[in-house]
């Protein structure tokens, strides 16, 4: 399950996508909108995305997680548009036979998504806004 959505992410549906009796370990990562960034109070976020390329890159991440990292079931969902504080921006779920593969694939997926998938975050503060530059 690979998706970009402009409505709240349904975490139960994400987990249901990776449910299976062959998989003993499931790891889910949720990225939420925090109320602060670099010492300033955040009011909300906007996410922009290049939809077809983002889906294509996410699909490539899923393939690599399966083939190289032992992930057996994968769900990757990112939200776009305006997000309020506490909202879930991204959900990554991985099921594998054993937990080390599930942890490692989930961690690799979110780390690599943040480096490679064309999605952009704009942070809004009380006194302005800026498009976030990734930390190197």
């Amino acid at each position, binding site marked *: 399950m690979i998706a970009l959505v402009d409505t709240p992410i349904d975490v139960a549906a994400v987990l249901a996508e990776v449910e299976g009796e062959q998989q003993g370990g499931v790891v889910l990562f949720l990225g939420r909108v925090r109320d602060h960034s670099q010492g300033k109070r955040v009011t909300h976020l906007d996410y922009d*995305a290049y939809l077809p390329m983002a889906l294509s890159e996410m699909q490539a991440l899923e393939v690599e997680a399966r083939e190289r990292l032992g992930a057996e079931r994968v769900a990757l969902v990112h939200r776009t548009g305006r997000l309020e504080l506490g909202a879930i921006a991204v959900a990554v779920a991985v099921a594998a036979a054993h937990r080390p593969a599930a942890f490692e694939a989930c961690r690799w997926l979110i780390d690599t998504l*943040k480096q490679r*998938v*064309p*999605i952009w975050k704009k942070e809004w503060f009380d006194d302005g806004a800026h*498009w*976030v530059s990734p930390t190197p």
Partner: protein
Amino acid sequence: MHVLLFAGLAERLGARELELRAPLPARVSELREHLAEQQPELAGAVYRVSVNHAYAQEDDALTEGDEIALIPPVSGG
């Protein structure tokens, strides 16, 4: 040539795509030169170029009908 824009680059140019005068085929590096000449608002902007939804290398060739986009540093998640 149509070029798609996103995030901060779309805001700088006030548009989500721009029309560029450029002979085709052209290399990605040549696209950058045309952009620098014709779109001074992009001065100093850092971006990668994608062709048909995949990151391109500087010497990849752009041909008629390719979907071309400028990809500023991503910050999803």
